[in-house]
């Protein structure tokens, strides 16, 4: 038997305090919450409202403990989730104190008074903290004999979040999350006393009819609830009035709700926790590489939840990462290889052996003719990218490989080769998520954090809230992300970003000063490739100020693809193609004869497409590429039409499929293992979630295709591919810094404007098909322009080029005059496809009628 020492001689370091919990002495850092100190001691105090990443609220009162200070007991039990530790505090939890235990049981009983007994139909049942704690500590029978308070249910507060107010225990986790973490405080506490409830501006309208404690007003209640449900399933927002709960992060409120008050429309009644097999996974959508948990049942993914990775996404993910996964189970998914019948011209299902032979024969013929170009697309894993890179060099003997299925430039190539590739990642001193939190300044250039990398946005906001990180955006308008990061906007015309960066010392000397301080960070998005001179200007800026630079692309695979060398100027590991030593090293590693690798860089994406049109290239090997993402979709279609032989490795029928001679099906991320490299350069490995589906990863397909062409890639599995890549140590030599002239943005004439554009997070992206609930929370598709520019146009504006036009409602925004902003790929606003124009182009604007 151990006896707690009467007097301890525990040393208390500076900044720490000593207290007693249940008779045990413990040293805790000053400012730590009592509930966490107790947790470290192994005593779990029950709680609902407490969340380590949210500010303390003390809302649910479940964590009451008895506290004594300086020998004087506090008159009433105290909430341990709001009380910070103090020296000499004596705490008794429910383990040793009857008072605390009774208080906790009383609170549990009160919380359950109005909680309905509908656990059997509640989605949270089986993983519900309230259920668990009621089973563990609650009474076995209820003493409450009166009618419970009822509300119509469920109430859709957005197309993907359903609110059931009866079940709510008013812990305010959702409202605190929305207010503090996401910065979208559309959801809040309404009413007072027994009528207090969670709601949005919209639910407030129906409040009088809805809140009643007696008989449910069944007729109207039933109707309004089901009417709401219908609109939810139809994927529209709830009603017209007020501001809907449209947050890119609303799914997190479902996950942190300690009861079943907030449930997901997509997961509604789909399964129970005990049905699900959970596997850790990594998000495939943006370049943040958020940790996720994928839950599947009988070979079908049921839901995705945020994983806990304090270094990357903490415990949050965006709604796209959470809800957009059904593309992999889409009906139209390609599951068997397709080969085009020479006679009928139709794609026909065939066996793998036949399809691989057809692909290998066609590629070999094209290679021996004018050559084959490789377009892997930006959504590949590191291993798949490496396989593409090696396949291009070894099997196709070319450097014509470019994964950038978006606007790109030669300047960007230089920038990636000199500043991004092989910077060592977090271990090598690269910018990390944690650095964003502590930086004195974060300058976002041509980068829209909330739309392009939501986890980065959350970190910037957290830093701005907690550590006064100054967030400065060089963009066109004060987007929601600017406001929610408490940011400063340095507005410039689209295409004028390079000038703005160069002139930062003149027009914003305070920003320039801050950039010189320790830890300053510059974040640049993929849009930089569309602004001539911007990468060069950024290079000059960071050389001058000493700030650190991070490139944050939009797609998950881009950074890994750069490392794997799917670029015309780079070999794996960041080795420049033009460097003879680097080539020799790679040739040795791959077992090639010296001098096999061409000494000249290959063609970039646009170069390849032009070469096909001019008959300087015969074939194409294409991965996940949508022609409408390319800078010139018309040129791309012309080129694909003209190509002698096209092999497409695809998951779903795409814009490439009509031109493909052979289509080889590949595995979605759930069905393969691999590694994404996130924008930090951090490797995010993931294991296979759905095993045994028979779907093959790109690296496996390319390996087998390579064997058919008498070469061995050694990328049979992703482990083998990664091993092969890792045996090639990172290059030591770096490419020269980019040095390209910047251009003044063109001056728009009369009836013209400069086009500013970026993609919204929730739009018509190809990985967002079959998700009506998610699509319902997309931001409104509008054309934004200044009041002066919008003058005389009316409600709608038609933006046109010689290719086509887009008509959208006008929203007056703080843009510079003569600039119009449109979302890049949203319903009704697919700019590349219809206008063939991108950021910085000159477009015609006219009043449009709708």
């Amino acid at each position, binding site marked *: 038997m151990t006896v707690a020492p009467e007097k301890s001689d525990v040393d208390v370091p500076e900044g720490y305090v000593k207290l007693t919990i249940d008779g045990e002495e413990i040293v805790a850092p000053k400012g730590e919450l009592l509930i966490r100190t107790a947790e470290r001691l192994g005593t779990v105090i029950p709680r609902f409202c407490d969340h380590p990443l949210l500010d303390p609220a003390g809302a649910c009162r479940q964590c009451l403990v008895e506290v004594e200070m300086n020998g004087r007991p506090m008159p009433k039990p105290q909430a341990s989730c709001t009380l910070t530790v103090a020296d000499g505090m004596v705490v008794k939890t429910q383990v040793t104190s009857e008072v605390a235990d009774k208080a906790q049981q009383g609170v549990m009983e009160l919380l359950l008074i109005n909680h309905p007994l509908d656990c059997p139909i509640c989605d949270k049942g*089986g993983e519900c903290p309230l259920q668990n704690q009621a089973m563990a500590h609650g009474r076995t029978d209820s003493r409450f004999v009166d009618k419970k308070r009822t509300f119509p249910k469920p109430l859709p507060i957005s197309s993907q979040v359903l609110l059931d107010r009866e079940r709510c225990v008013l812990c305010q986790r959702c409202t605190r999350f929305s207010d503090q973490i996401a910065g979208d405080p559309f959801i809040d506490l309404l009413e007072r006393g027994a009528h207090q409830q969670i709601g949005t501006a919209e639910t407030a309208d129906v409040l009088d009819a809805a809140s009643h404690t007696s008989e*449910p007003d069944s007729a109207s209640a*039933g109707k309004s609830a089901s009417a709401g449900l219908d609109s939810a399933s139809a994927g529209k927002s709830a009603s017209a009035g007020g501001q809907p709960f449209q947050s890119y992060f609303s799914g997190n409120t479902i996950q942190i709700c300690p009861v079943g008050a907030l449930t997901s429309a997509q997961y509604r009644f*789909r399964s129970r926790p005990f*049905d699900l097999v959970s596997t850790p996974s990594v998000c495939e959508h943006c370049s943040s590489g958020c940790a996720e948990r994928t839950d599947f049942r009988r070979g079908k993914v049921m839901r995705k939840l945020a994983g806990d990775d304090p270094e990357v996404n903490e415990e949050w993910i965006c709604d796209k990462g959470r809800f957009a996964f059904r593309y992999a189970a889409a009906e139209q998914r390609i599951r068997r290889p397709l080969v085009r019948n020479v006679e009928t011209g139709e794609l026909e299902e065939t066996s793998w052996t036949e399809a691989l032979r057809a692909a290998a024969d066609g590629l070999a013929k094209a290679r021996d003719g004018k050559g084959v170009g490789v377009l892997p697309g930006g959504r590949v894993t590191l291993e798949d990218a490496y396989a593409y890179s090696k396949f291009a060099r070894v099997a196709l003997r070319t450097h014509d490989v470019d994964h950038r299925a978006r606007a790109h430039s030669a300047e960007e190539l230089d920038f990636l080769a000199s500043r991004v590739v092989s910077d060592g990642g977090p271990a090598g001193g690269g910018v990390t998520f944690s650095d964003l939190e502590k930086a004195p300044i974060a300058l976002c250039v041509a980068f829209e954090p909330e739309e392009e990398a939501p986890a980065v946005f959350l970190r910037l906001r957290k830093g701005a809230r907690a550590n006064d990180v100054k967030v400065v955006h060089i963009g066109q308008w004060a987007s929601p992300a600017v406001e929610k990061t408490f940011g400063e906007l340095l507005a410039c015309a689209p295409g004028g970003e390079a000038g703005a960066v160069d002139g930062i010392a003149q027009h914003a000397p305070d920003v320039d000063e801050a950039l010189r301080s320790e830890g300053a960070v510059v974040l640049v998005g993929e849009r930089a490739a569309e602004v001539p001179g911007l990468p060069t200007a950024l290079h000059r800026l960071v050389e001058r100020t000493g700030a650190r630079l991070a490139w944050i692309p939009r797609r998950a695979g881009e950074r890994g693809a750069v490392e794997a060398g799917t670029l015309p100027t780079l070999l794996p590991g960041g080795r420049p193609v033009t460097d003879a030593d680097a080539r020799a090293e790679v040739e040795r590693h791959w077992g090639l004869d010296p001098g096999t690798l061409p000494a000249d860089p290959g063609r970039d994406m646009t170069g390849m497409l032009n070469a096909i049109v001019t008959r300087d290239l015969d074939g194409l090997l294409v991965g996940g590429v949508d022609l409408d993402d390319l800078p010139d979709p018309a040129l791309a279609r012309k080129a694909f039409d003209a190509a002698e032989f096209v092999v497409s490795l695809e998951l779903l029928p795409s814009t490439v499929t009509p031109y493909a001679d052979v289509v080889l099906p590949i595995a979605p991320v759930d069905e393969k293992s691999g590694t994404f490299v996130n924008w930090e350069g951090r490797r995010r490995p993931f294991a296979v979630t759905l095993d045994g589906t028979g779907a093959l990863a790109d690296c496996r397909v390319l390996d087998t295709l390579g064997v058919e062409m008498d070469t061995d890639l050694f990328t049979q599995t992703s482990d083998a591919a990664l091993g092969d890549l890792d045996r090639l140590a990172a290059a030591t030599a770096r490419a020269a810094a980019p040095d390209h002239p910047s251009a003044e943005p063109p001056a728009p004439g009369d009836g013209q404007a400069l086009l500013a554009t970026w993609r919204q997070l929730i739009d018509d992206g190809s990985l967002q098909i079959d998700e009506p609930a998610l699509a319902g929370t997309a931001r409104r598709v509008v054309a934004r322009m200044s009041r002066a520019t919008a003058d005389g146009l009316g409600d709608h504006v038609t933006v046109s080029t010689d290719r086509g036009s887009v008509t959208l409602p006008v929203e007056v925004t703080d843009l510079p005059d003569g600039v119009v902003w449109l979302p890049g790929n949203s319903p009704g606003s697919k700019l590349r496809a219809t206008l063939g124009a991108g950021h910085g182009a000159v477009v015609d604007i006219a009043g449009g009628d709708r």
Partner: protein
Amino acid sequence: MGIFDPVKGFGVTFGMMFKKVATEEYPEIGAPAAPRYHGRHQLNRHPDGLEKCVGCELCAWACPADAIFVEGGDNTEEARYSPGERYGADYQINYLRCIGCGLCVEACPTRSLTMINFYELADDNRQDLIWTKEDLLAPLLPGMEQPPHPMRLGENEQDYYVNGPELARDRGVPEHETVETDTEEAVR
């Protein structure tokens, strides 16, 4: 050993011919189980024909043999299968696995799942021994209507749960029948 002993034995046989036989003529005539025998499962209905199953999966959770598969579904105004928000969209019991313990019946919160005394569950292939919702649902009694249809007996599920027995009386369900049919006749 007496002189008649060899025929005595025939006497026993002959005598038995006039006694009542204990043999059950199965399967020609059939052998009804005791009224409360736990045979196969049945998914019961409310008096208007709506299903009692809410797809909560508690039966599947309770099942020690993992014989039950359930998937819930969302009732809409257009297609309503049960009172309330949720119904059992897919319901399967694998009688190759079921051990007839009845824990599922105890777990059922709506008394949707009960067991009737039908016990002829043998078959010559595995596929047919996975009984689906169509096989398990109780037959439509007089006054019942094949779902989907709107709630006929009340405004919400509370009315169904609280006033179930009274509602059954007013629907023309025969006097001696309960809605939870558990006799073999009901099956036929």
